[in-house]
């Protein structure tokens, strides 16, 4: 089997990007990743895209290929919410490992902030089941809040511990000139921000941003002459348990347990081997539940670790070193791709001002829906 490597990575500016469109962000991200790899559009034989809220096309990969003037040998678009970016990396790796493609461009991006005039929250609410959730005014924060309440009840997690996660993300974002939100916050700021759905405050929730991000996944034997040494895709895995929170088999254990076990197992690694993690953080509780379900911490210990600073750069398990969805930015499917790009930068030693010293192994994780669909990707330094 051929080996898969990430040969290019790029993320656009994030925030309120007036004048940007879904396709212009795809273009900047895609061309940026190709330039980073030292490849031209004509070198790309595979194209993978996600989905867009502002341009809800049925066939986004075809739309983008046409827009940019690309005629790939393989194209597909995947719509699986926040897990999509990691899934696309897994699919791209499978394509090059199986020999169908040599260079797969994986592109995400959306102008979800400026392009939706404040309607993103309402659009996201339609994620809920039309008959059995939407009539009750369920929102995505409310669904995650139901998880948080259960988690607090069973494992003694506190609001202060969740707030510490938000604070750590903001500290990391302050080290990253590209981040959407850089102004410092304290645990008290999080606790005193208004409730969205108890126990989650405004500052427990991710941002809504414009932005785009892309990577190039190449077959190792096609990557030898490229601009930068490739970052190895060492193992990938998925886990799926439900779509709607009303039907979730557990509110404390999720598909990330299987996805991480499979990804680490295929890489021949265990959680303690990983130097840096970039894990989906749509809400503070999302990250806490995933860290414990995946085995990075025992039950009830991730919140304690966050409060003790163990998730900071320089801590025991540096986490979301770019600032995450909570403070770097969240642009739909690109939100998950920011985690992938950050892992690549960490493993290349390019994360100026926020570099985890000696980072050789990273785990990236995405979650879609209400902790419904999961994908983990283990990456290794060249």
């Amino acid at each position, binding site marked *: 089997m051929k080996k898969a490597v990430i040969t290019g990575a790029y993320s656009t500016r994030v925030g309120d990007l007036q004048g940007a469109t879904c396709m212009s962000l795809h273009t900047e991200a895609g061309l940026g990743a190709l330039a980073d790899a030292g490849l031209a559009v004509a070198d790309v034989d595979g194209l993978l895209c996600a989905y867009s809220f502002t341009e809800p096309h049925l066939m986004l990969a075809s739309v983008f290929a046409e827009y940019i003037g690309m005629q790939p040998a393989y194209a597909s678009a995947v719509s699986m919410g926040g897990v999509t970016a990691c899934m696309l990396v897994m699919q791209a790796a499978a394509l090059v490992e199986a020999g169908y493609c040599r260079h797969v461009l994986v592109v995400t991006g959306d102008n979800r902030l400026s392009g939706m005039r404040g309607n993103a*929250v*309402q659009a996201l*609410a339609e994620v*809920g*089941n*039309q*008959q*059995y*959730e*939407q*009539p*009750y*005014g*369920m*929102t995505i*924060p*409310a669904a995650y*809040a*139901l*998880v*948080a*309440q*259960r988690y607090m*009840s069973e494992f003694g997690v506190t609001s202060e511990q969740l707030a510490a996660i938000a604070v750590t993300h903001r500290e990391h974002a302050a080290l990253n000139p590209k981040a959407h939100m850089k102004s410092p916050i304290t645990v008290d700021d999080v606790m005193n921000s*208004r*409730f*969205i*759905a*108890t*126990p*989650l405050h405004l500052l427990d929730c991710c941002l809504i941003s414009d932005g785009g991000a892309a990577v190039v996944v190449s077959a190792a034997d096609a990557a030898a002459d490229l601009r930068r040494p490739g970052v190895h895709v060492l193992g990938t895995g998925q886990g799926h348990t439900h779509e709607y*929170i*009303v*039907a979730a088999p557990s*509110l404390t254990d999720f598909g990330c347990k299987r996805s991480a076990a499979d990804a680490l197992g295929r890489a021949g690694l265990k959680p303690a081997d990983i130097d840096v993690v970039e894990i989906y953080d749509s809400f503070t509780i999302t990250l806490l539940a995933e860290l414990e379900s995946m085995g990075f911490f025992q039950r009830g210990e991730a919140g304690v670790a966050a409060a003790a600073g163990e998730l900071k750069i320089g801590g025991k398990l540096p986490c979301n070193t770019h600032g995450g969805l909570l403070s770097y930015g969240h642009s739909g499917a690109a939100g998950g791709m920011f985690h992938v790009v950050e892992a690549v930068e960490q493993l290349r030693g390019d994360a100026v001002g926020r570099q985890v010293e000696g980072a050789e192994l990273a785990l990236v994780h995405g979650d879609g829906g209400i902790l419904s669909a999961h994908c983990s990707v283990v990456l290794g330094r060249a």
Partner: protein
Amino acid sequence: MEKPVPRPNADSAPFWEGCAAHEFRFQRCRDCGKAQFYPRAVCSHCQGRDLEWLVSAGKGAVYSVTTVYRGPSAAFKDVTPYQVALVDMDEGFRFMANVRGGEAEIGTRVRVIYEERGDQTIPQVEIGG
């Protein structure tokens, strides 16, 4: 703007017809004996297709609950804050509802009541039972 009204389909029509008659119907699999909610054409536990409709006694306990301060749309703005709960019914299935008649917490006993909305009747819960 009106709150969302459920749109029944062939899987769910017996459930919503039951609600209109103030009767909480749920499915049980004749093969494995387990209850399920929401209604489907297949048992999600064993993939059996032989499902029977039963009527719930309408009593259960709150499995988790949150108080929502920011609703999904203008239709919910006037009623915030409101509680959204996952309720474990005594017959062994779970459903979502708003809590009426007080504030629930995890473990609170509740009973089903009905709200008329548009051309449908939707189940809710109130504290007690």
